[in-house]
């Protein structure tokens, strides 16, 4: 007997008890729907954390001098050009981009028009110089260079900082929402050698202009990222260290090569600053724990649905005992009877799984629409809180089918063991 014949027969059996089949499918749909909904929510939030709140480049390592090492005590362990060359030569390393922090205090005072509003602002400026090649995807390297005298310094700001400005800072101060393209070209003054928070006096002040050239996730979050040569020049100007780097962004040839590369870096006496990665992992772990707890609840609903299917099938079998006896009399084997019952359950489960997955998608769309209407804007607000990859829908379908089939195992066994002689004689 072919599977198609069995499926047809099972389908006919289900159609005879549509109400019972639909109720059983509803139980599966609720369980699978809840599971898909919570998993999609977890995936969506995880993606948000990974790509927007704590974006981490899987190929990159942030190499920093060891906080305490024998090398540093003896004057070694410094990230200078020689160390940079050694890092570049490590097996598995593709690129090494040096970074140098501005070791001079700097402030910005702005009082003027700001895209149709008036802005009066004074703040401490943190500046990081980077190899222009690191930002090549944002600003062409030839435009991200230390400018000649009198020209503004090109700067790249953090995409996340712009998000925080737009969703949190701007609304509370009635400032306009700004997009990256609008801000590119915006200039603001910077004064070097002076600080609002420190009483250090470096003897001279130097005023300059900074011009925003672009936005990047790799830019300094609470500060501005400028060409390495500019920072090197300022540090030298104020007699600060202009030869050692604060950090080096080391890119592996492949993401899989990162652990080995990190091991080599540590063997050289340097440390890896993976605080961003750790924050992303911690946030991801918290999301995973909550998602798992809710998913467990949904799985329990699926188990209940499976038990319900088992009970329904047992009841149906009692009513259909003679029918099964007739099927045995006309040539059905025990295995075929068991397969027929399991197929009935599988069809109910698949229907429930499909409805559950579609229902979860619909509910997620509804929640997103409601969130857009009800929630105030906040930083990193996603278009959707949910991620619905195809595998999730297929997994929902599979889980529904599996739960139903597992629930039907005992009824199928009982049906296969029905004594046709007894039920037909009765």
């Amino acid at each position, binding site marked *: 007997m072919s599977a198609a014949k069995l499926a047809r027969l099972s389908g006919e059996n289900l159609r005879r008890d549509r109400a019972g089949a639909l109720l059983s499918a509803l139980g599966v749909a609720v369980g699978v729907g809840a599971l898909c909904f919570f998993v999609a929510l977890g995936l969506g939030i995880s993606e948000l954390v990974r790509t927007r709140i704590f974006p981490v480049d899987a190929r990159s390592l942030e190499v920093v001098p060891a906080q305490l090492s024998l090398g540093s005590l003896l004057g070694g362990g410094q990230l200078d050009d020689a160390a940079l060359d050694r890092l570049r030569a490590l097996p598995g390393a593709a690129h090494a981009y040096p970074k140098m922090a501005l070791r001079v205090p700097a402030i910005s005072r702005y009082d003027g028009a700001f895209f149709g509003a008036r802005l009066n602002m004074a703040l401490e400026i943190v500046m990081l110089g980077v190899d222009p090649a690191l930002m090549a995807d944002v600003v062409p390297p030839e435009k991200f260079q230390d400018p000649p005298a009198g020209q503004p310094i090109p700067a790249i700001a953090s995409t996340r900082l712009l998000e925080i400005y737009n969703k949190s800072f701007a609304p509370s101060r009635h400032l306009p929402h700004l997009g990256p393209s609008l801000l590119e070209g915006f200039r603001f003054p910077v004064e070097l050698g002076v600080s609002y928070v420190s009483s250090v006096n470096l003897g001279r002040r130097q005023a300059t202009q900074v011009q925003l050239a672009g936005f990047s996730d790799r830019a300094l979050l609470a500060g501005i990222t400028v060409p390495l040569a500019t920072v090197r020049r300022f540090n030298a100007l104020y007699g600060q260290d202009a030869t050692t780097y604060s950090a080096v962004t080391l890119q592996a040839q492949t993401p899989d090569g990162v652990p080995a590369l990190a091991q080599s870096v540590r063997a050289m006496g340097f440390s890896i600053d993976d605080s961003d990665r750790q924050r992303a992992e911690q946030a991801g772990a918290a999301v995973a724990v909550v998602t798992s707890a809710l998913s467990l609840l949904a799985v329990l609903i699926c188990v209940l649905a499976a038990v319900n299917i088992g009970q329904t099938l047992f009841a149906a079998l009692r009513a259909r005992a003679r029918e099964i006896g*007739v*099927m045995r*009399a*006309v*040539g059905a084997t025990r295995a*075929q009877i068991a397969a027929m019952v399991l197929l009935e359950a599988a069809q109910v489960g698949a229907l429930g799984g499909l409805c559950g997955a579609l229902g979860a998608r619909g509910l997620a769309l509804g929640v997103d629409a409601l969130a857009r209407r009800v929630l105030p804007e906040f930083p990193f607000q996603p278009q959707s809180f949910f991620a619905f990859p195809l595998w999730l829908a297929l997994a929902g379908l599979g889980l529904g089918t599996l739960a139903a089939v597992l629930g039907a195992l005992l009824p199928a066994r009982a049906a296969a063991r029905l004594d*046709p002689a007894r039920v*037909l004689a009765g």
Partner: protein
Amino acid sequence: MIRIRGLTKRYPDGAGSTLCVLDGADLDVAAGGFVALMGPSGSGKSSLLHVLGGLDADFTGEVEVLGQRLDALGDRERARLRNAKMGFVFQSYHLIPTLPAWRNVALPAAFSPQVERDAEARARESLSRVGLAAKAHRLPTELSGGERQRVAIARALFFRPPLLLCDEPTGNLDAQSGGEVLALFCELNRDGVTLLIATHEERVAAAASRRVKLSAGKLIEDLSPARVEARP
């Protein structure tokens, strides 16, 4: 066609003991035979049919049907034998109430390794044989008792089996319907189908070529003078 030697069938009697309904029974039925199986209720007629049909494998003794030793066959082989070479007819018809007549008749096709493509045509042919071609799409509830039993016979004949096992096939029918069904059995027997019919009815027994009585678990050939004289 059928060869039984020393068939013993016991049932638990619910009091921790067993009830023996067939006690070393012997029987031979040749191909084309028409055997009426007589005996009071509970004498083991249905049990014998179930054993012969491979529905009950819990027995001792030798049972050979259509050249196959049933005690040596597994569930799958017995099912295949029932599907292709035997037909069952029951007193209560046992039709599936939600399926039209032709689907009931075609039920054996669902469990056959053969392709089901011509199942409807074959079911209609089978219904024609019992005179119900015009009612192929009627549900069992839309048919009379006699018609239902004829649908059940059509189902038993679906794969043109050489052997029909019938358990009180006229027991639920009125005289006229019972007569029509009996006439159908006689016609089938003339066409070469071997019939083994468990019955209480004298007219059914009278139509059979042999009458076998079940008494104290044994199968006894009825060789009463009238019967012997009537034998060909």
